[in-house]
């Protein structure tokens, strides 16, 4: 029983780590205060759910979830290219509302508030030996999430260690100076947002196939708060900080369960806890645990 609960938490940590590290790429390294991250997560979840309900194999749904979200990332970067800081945050926040409304009201596609039940668990058809590997147990699903988190981590580390990572950080520090050095910052920012969206979509797909049911209430603007808290508490432009903060922010609210609060209080208490941690961090450690970057 306890081990099943632990595995559940580990899966959540994995999914949130993918969400947070990809948001870190946009916010911490690219300086793009993107509050539309949950919209990409939602797009990924819905694409994956709808396609797999239509009978497509899991891995195709999974990839298309990422690619679909990435395309929307590119799309979002077109109108928001010239926006910075708060203005960008507002515009991307608007994007979350748009996607949420579409999920809620486009009932012929998404069934609206009824949601999409019965999303199949991931399964692979292994050719040659003609065997169907189905990840129905939570332990096997955890292994999948772990593997994909690891790939995401390696992918993003690779980007930020490369010269592209430097030019992305330069764009964050001073976009005009980067342009005057001859760099097309629009292209750089579009890549950053697109890749960030890709992994958010991937996380959405994992979530949909794990819970096997999605509805619009999982993708409200409020959902950005834990993810953004992880990024800020861990520290901007710190991957290590993101990892540690993910574990802390997923596990800490779980303690509330053991205090014996009724479940109706746990939800709001969780939000209060996030707000409290965020406030304490901003007062005592404004750069987060491992943040090196100061944004002007």
């Amino acid at each position: 029983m306890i081990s099943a609960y632990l595995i559940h938490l580990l899966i959540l940590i994995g999914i949130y780590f993918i969400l947070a590290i990809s948001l870190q790429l946009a916010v911490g390294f690219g300086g793009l205060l993107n509050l539309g991250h949950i919209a990409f997560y939602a797009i990924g979840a819905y694409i994956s759910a709808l396609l797999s309900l239509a009978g497509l194999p899991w891995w195709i749904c999974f990839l298309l979830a990422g690619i679909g979200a990435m395309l929307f990332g590119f799309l979002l970067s077109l109108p928001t290219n010239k926006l910075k800081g708060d203005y960008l945050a507002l515009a991307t926040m608007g994007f979350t509302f748009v996607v949420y409304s579409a999920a809620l009201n486009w009932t012929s596609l998404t069934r609206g508030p009824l949601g999409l039940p019965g999303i199949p668990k991931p399964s692979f058809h292994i050719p040659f030996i003609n065997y169907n590997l189905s990840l129905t147990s939570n332990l096997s699903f955890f292994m999948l999430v772990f593997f994909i988190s690891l790939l995401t981590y390696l992918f993003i580390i690779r980007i930020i260690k490369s010269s592209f990572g430097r030019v992305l950080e330069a764009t964050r520090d001073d976009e005009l100076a980067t342009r005057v050095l001859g760099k097309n910052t629009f292209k750089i920012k579009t890549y950053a947002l697109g890749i960030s969206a890709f992994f958010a979509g991937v996380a959405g797909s994992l979530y949909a196939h794990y819970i096997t049911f999605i509805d619009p209430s999982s993708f409200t603007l409020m959902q950005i708060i834990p993810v953004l808290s992880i990024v800020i508490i861990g520290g901007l432009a710190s991957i290590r900080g993101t990892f540690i903060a993910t574990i802390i922010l997923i596990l800490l609210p779980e303690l509330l369960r053991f205090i014996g609060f009724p479940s109706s209080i746990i939800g709001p208490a969780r939000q209060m806890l996030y707000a409290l941690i965020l406030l304490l961090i901003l007062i005592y450690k404004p750069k987060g645990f491992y943040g090196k970057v100061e944004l002007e």
Partner: protein
Amino acid sequence: MLKVQNLKKYFGGVKAVNDCNFEVQEKTITALIGPNGSGKTTVFNLISGILKTDDGKIIFDNKDITNLSPETISNIGISRLFQQSRLFNNLTVKENLLLAFDNEDTKFWKNFLGKNKITKEKLEKVREILKEIEMDGFLNKLARDLSYGQKRLIELARTILNPHKLLILDEPLAGVNPKLRKIIEKILLRLKKSGETILLIEHDMDFSFRVSDKIIVMDEGRVIAEGEPKEIKNNPKVLEAYLGD
């Protein structure tokens, strides 16, 4: 090499640049001087594409570069130093300078696949220029931790490393101490010797008259005088613009 023709830029009712005409010859140092608010920096912003012109033309190397984007103009060959520090504060001195060389770093897949390594030649050039500005030991220091004068020097180095045919420097001496001024002067004269073309804005008259081949004087958005330093020194219009009647 650079021709500015009938350039105009208005901010509401303020005629920041009003029918400005001048030319910069190849392999010379030209200084743009004039009282505060005479439109010098606005002209620089128009040349480097940061502001859009209201009217007029900017010709560089026989090409019309009017209203092109800052990155295009940089890639055509105009490298610019800003008046205030614009280093990438969270990057090191080395990283700041390495960004200047080329635009290969903006190619995502090339970098992701590890096909854009930092070459020895680039590192050698970075070391060389740091030596020239007497900041050898600062290679791995964060730009944020440098003093104002040091930031100016690194920024000048970055502007020089950025591939160019023309350097435009907005007040390279502003706020730096006499020792650093000497270093900057030495570098500018070395660049001129090696055949570079420089256009600069500078309030320090002694310096401008000493290093420049030609002085252009602006007042109220237009050129009121131009010529060799010794002609300008005794020009009554210039004295009036600077000292009032």
